[in-house]
């Protein structure tokens, strides 16, 4: 089945107001910024954002007023530090107050793993003695039914939609992703719907030539969006590098509400699509981020 569609229609169809959205799941690489920017342009409201660490993507959505709740382990700017919009929302309810459900990377991963396995929760011994379960009361401390020892139950989280950026996909949503995966696999199996954003759309033959490289079951994929450079300023292994300067620029410009508003005008509101975004970025900068040296994986034979 051909699931190709535009980013605008994918977001319009599968990310309504009030959705819970898992996004930015591979940690620093492969962050679906193009999808987040379209969510902002379509003025979605009352979203719940789910992810491990979010490297400025959650901050952008929070600053734009799209977010009611954040379930995450870390929200900031990895190479720069704090996230200004996240701070303003949490500390001063600007542009609105948000609910924050604190996790660690391991426990947010376990919550998505549990949902994918159809298990109500997974017990663990991390975070015992931490204040995180006292603040996020969905994490419940119990005594082990086996030996009475303390355990933390991490309840399943089932996102309405998981948005994933991959290197390549066919039109049906059979996709190859490589590099560190973070909690992407768990979020794909946990989700009700999946939106794939791909650097390249490739023939089915390319994907099925290497089924161990496939990210997950395409029958969960609702939309496939072809969006080259859709993860910029984050890195996509084999396609482009992280644009550290962009994160620095964002950090500097968004210290004030006005500064964030201006940044948003420049890079999102007055930038209707990814083509315009790339034009603004400029050929020189795009070239400088590109692959300098190819490193191809050793051949693998599926023959018989």
């Amino acid at each position: 089945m051909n699931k190709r569609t535009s980013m605008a229609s994918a977001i319009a169809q599968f990310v309504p107001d009030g959705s819970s959205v898992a996004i930015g799941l591979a940690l620093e690489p492969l962050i679906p910024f193009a999808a987040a920017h379209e969510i902002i342009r379509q003025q979605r409201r009352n979203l719940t954002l789910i992810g491990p660490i979010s490297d400025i993507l959650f901050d952008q959505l929070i600053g734009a007023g799209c977010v009611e709740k954040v379930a995450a382990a870390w929200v900031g700017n990895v190479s720069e530090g704090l996230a200004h919009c996240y701070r303003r929302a949490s500390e001063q309810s600007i542009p609105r107050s948000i609910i924050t459900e604190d996790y660690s990377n391991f426990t947010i991963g376990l919550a998505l793993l549990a949902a994918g396995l159809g298990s109500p929760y997974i017990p663990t011994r991390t975070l015992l003695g931490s204040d995180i379960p006292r603040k996020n009361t969905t994490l419940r401390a119990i005594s082990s039914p086996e030996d009475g020892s303390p355990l933390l139950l991490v309840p399943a989280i089932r996102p309405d939609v998981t948005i994933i950026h991959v290197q390549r996909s066919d039109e049906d949503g059979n996709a190859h992703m490589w590099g560190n995966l973070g909690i992407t696999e768990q979020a794909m199996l946990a989700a009700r719907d999946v939106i794939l954003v791909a650097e390249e759309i490739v023939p089915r033959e390319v994907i099925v030539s290497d089924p161990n490289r496939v990210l997950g079951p395409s029958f969960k994929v609702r939309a496939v969006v072809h969006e080259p450079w859709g993860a910029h300023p984050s890195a996509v292994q084999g396609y482009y590098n992280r644009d550290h300067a962009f994160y620095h620029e964002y950090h500097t410009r968004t210290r004030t509400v006005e500064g964030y508003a201006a940044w948003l005008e420049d890079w999102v509101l007055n930038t209707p699509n990814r083509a315009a975004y790339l034009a603004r970025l400029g050929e020189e900068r795009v070239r400088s981020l590109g692959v300098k040296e190819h490193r191809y994986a050793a051949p693998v034979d599926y023959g018989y």
Partner: protein
Amino acid sequence: MEYTPRELMVVCAARQIHDGENVFVGMRLPLIAFALAKRTHAPNCIGLFETGTIRDEPSAELLYTMGDAPNIAGALWTTGTLNVMAPMATGDVHLGFIGGAEVDRYGNLNTSLIGDWQHPSVRLPGSGGGADIASFSQRLAIIMQHDHRRLREKVDFVTSPGYGYPDEHGPAGTSWRRRVGLPRGGPSALITTLAVFTFDPTNGEAMLQSYHPGTTIEQVQEQTGWELRLAPDCKETVPPTEHELRVIREHDPQGVWTR
């Protein structure tokens, strides 16, 4: 040979790594400490990264984040976060590194918020993998900028458990960790811009192990929010060797993290 406080912190961090150990590497300075240890006294140590990467060679280029392309190319394993944290959960990680905004005398670390839980005066990014590293690794090394607002008697929020606090059931320290159900571990070192602390597992208290060249115990006390306890062999921090500094500067020529 001249060096910066951060270069000294990287050297102190690298010295925490023993050869052959599995090290859970955190952001920024630990990334360089891992590279330094590999190239000096711990050539056989292995680095685990919460992004889902394991490698036994430092990346060819300086990392701004552990997810940067050079940290993936040539890795021993690139996979998911759970697969890399699983061996830590079962006790196979010897040493973990984390930084934070606040730490207290018992090595409890706060990276979540300052002030009121519901209406914080400062909302910090949160745990990331830090609380898991603090819960599961055999030893924990904490890296912090040193001032009295950061090294406090008690943190506002315990994100990553250290040795807890004394309570009606017993003292802080290893026994507290056992009481709350943590499987192992606890802080073994607190490395700051001024000093290095070790910990007494029997009561969980930080002990001043060494003060950096150019500082005094008095200056450390001024910038520390609790009354210092000195380790029996408390002395000046051994400065970086020329070789250590050369390796650091090869790895971070612009001094992005170490200037």
